């Protein structure tokens, strides 16, 4: 194991996969000479050359589609979209082409490609640069959507995504790039489509992905100390396919759940998780599933407004308290309770 940042884990994994398989190549805006907007690809142009690290024009539809076409002929392109907001310019190629080509032609052509892109608000980037719109892609059969929250998962899921024969949207997060964690030295790809229980507990199930999985784990650890609460945390890891059974197993044990997400609440990922719990664990539920999500506004620039629009740690803690209160669960500051 090596302690490293989420950014470093991504960089090292890209590099090792390029060394392993010469069909792996990178495409994106400013990933070469500029070394990437978030420096994930630093040094790779110098090491691998222009053939395998391609600076593209600002043409998301064009170069994302070109990566899809190259994948149809067996290359394994890893595309970097500078932020997920810009994926909207490429959405025709992602949704109407990458997601459709395998099925629409009766399984005759695979599209083994990865689209890496960060979401995330909280950086004062305003309305068009702060969105969390992974839902648009998680909605579409034919795509796989993964969202690692730790450096170790960033490595394991990126390995899996690159080696997978389907198009994978790989969601990163601006706020996670500098977070650190232990990363295994050996290559062990994750299984796409599986969620992770990152903390076991029996009082409440707290569910998140990407940055919010990180925040959820932190809050659960904190409440164990301060409130002696034993919260189970699920990191979804994969948004499509969604691991419904891991969610249900947990809620059957805890009888209540809070879903936390950086995207908007209405029609969001949390809505799908809540509906899943309603369908699969209705008889076990002691309280409505609570969702903590962003306010339904375009993200403002001003810090005061941006902070108010985004879910805070305190918002999540209050939602946990209210859910436990609703089921008559006495909270204790003095010791564990059942």
């Amino acid at each position, binding site marked *: 194991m090596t302690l490293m940042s989420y950014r470093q884990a991504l960089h090292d994994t890209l590099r090792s996969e390029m060394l392993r398989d010469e069909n792996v190549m990178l495409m994106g805006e400013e990933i070469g000479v500029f070394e990437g907007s978030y420096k994930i690809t630093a040094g790779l142009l110098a090491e691998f050359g222009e053939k395998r690290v391609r600076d593209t024009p600002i043409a998301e539809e064009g170069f994302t589609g070109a990566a*899809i076409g190259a994948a*149809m002929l067996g290359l394994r392109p890893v595309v970097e979209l500078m932020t997920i907001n810009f994926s909207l310019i490429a959405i025709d190629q992602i949704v109407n082409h990458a997601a459709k080509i395998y099925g629409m032609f009766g399984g005759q052509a695979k599209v*083994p490609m990865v689209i890496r892109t960060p979401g995330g608000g909280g950086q004062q980037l305003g309305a068009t640069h702060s969105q969390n719109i992974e839902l648009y892609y998680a909605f579409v059969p034919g795509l796989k959507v993964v969202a690692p929250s730790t450096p170790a998962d960033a490595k394991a899921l990126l390995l899996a995504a690159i080696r997978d024969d389907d198009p994978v949207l790989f969601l990163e997060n601006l706020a996670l790039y500098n977070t650190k964690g232990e990363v295994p030295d050996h290559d062990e790809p994750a299984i796409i489509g599986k969620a992770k229980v990152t903390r076991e507990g029996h009082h409440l199930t707290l569910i998140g992905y990407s940055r919010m999985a990180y925040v959820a784990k932190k809050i659960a650890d904190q409440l164990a100390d301060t409130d002696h609460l034993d919260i189970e945390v699920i990191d979804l890891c994969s948004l499509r396919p969604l691991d419904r059974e891991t969610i249900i197993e947990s809620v059957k044990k805890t009888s209540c759940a809070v879903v936390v997400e950086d995207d908007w609440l209405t029609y969001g990922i949390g809505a799908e998780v809540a509906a899943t719990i309603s369908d699969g664990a209705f008889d076990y539920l002691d309280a409505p599933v609570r969702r903590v999500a962003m306010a339904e506004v375009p993200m403002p620039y001003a810090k005061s407004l941006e902070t108010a629009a985004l879910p805070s740690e305190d918002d999540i803690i209050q939602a946990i308290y209210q859910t436990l209160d609703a089921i008559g669960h006495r909270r204790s500051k003095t010791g564990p309770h059942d």
Partner: protein
Amino acid sequence: MTTKKPTAGTARKAAAPARAVKASAAGKTAAKKTVAAKAPAKKAAPAKAPAKKAAPTKAKAQLLDFYREMLFIRRFEERAARAYTQAFIGGYCHLNLGEEAAVVGLMDALRPTDYLFTNYREHGYAIARNIDPNRIMAELYGRADGVSKGWGGSMHMFDMDHRLLGGYGIVGGQLPLATGAALAIDYRGGDDVVMCTMGEGTTNIGAFHESLNIAELWKLPVVFVVINNFLGMGTKVEKSSAEPEIYRRGAAYRMPAARVDGADPVAVAEAARIAVESARAGQPYLLEVTCHRLRGHSVVDPAKYRTPEEVEELKLHDPVHNLAAQLVAQGLADEATLAHLDEQILARVEEIAAFAEASPHPDVATLFDYTYATPVPNDSRRLPGQPLFDENGNAQ
């Protein structure tokens, strides 16, 4: 029904010299030319022109081959239109009627190992790529023997063996894909070429600009072919394109370009050969082929936007009719021979329709077979009427 194609074993040119050609020079040349297909490409791809030196008998045979194939596409498409009205074919159905000469001329320029990306008006291309027409019609019928196993329909035919890498229903969607396929060829140092066809309406969307820009920047082996039939669905090209002479748009990317009369299969084949040679030498190319769509945009379009005068004039542009007249006038075939050929083709097309009708509908058990190439846990296999969790509590 077969197409004569150059064999893959013909001498291949080294790509390197032409890749060194200055793009600006090629661009200037293209801008000066109006309809000549030859000059710009000669700059980029100093290829020999074997077709021009062909013996008269070979030219005669080629013309007859073209006619046979054009007539086959004509009769196939007419049969498809009938099957549509009989409700054997659903969805959209766009026909190549009026584009037969363009289709056979373009496909004649490709090696069997070259790739084709096309749009939703594609049946003729599938035929000219030597895909079994039984399977093409079966795809139109949505049957298991279809080229795309019934998953694609009229707009989405695909056959890796014949290197038809898809008809695409979203206007312009195929352009970035074709560019990427050319990138993969270039990445591996191969000498295959990608041809990408589109309608003239496609040249107004972003994917056209982005793809031509990338192809030229990276010198990819791709030929962009614009079938200009002067109409979107019903909107005239002058109403949709600020530059209605589409080939002139190549100048914006310093890409050699040419325009050719799509009613003449020999002229199309020659122009396409020059374009393909250029691409094979690393200089992408824009080829505009002018055509006249003989019927509506799709089978269900009565084309009421055409004036009676325009409808009358269309008859003069029928490439199949015109080539038949040419064959007779030049003494290459007589009326009786052509009538006999037509009878044979009509009979064959009936067999094709019968094959499609007899082909089984796809088994519903295969509904979930093509969502993912790499199997993945928790992939849903739930049918619409089923709950999210089965009676055992398992997600489905």
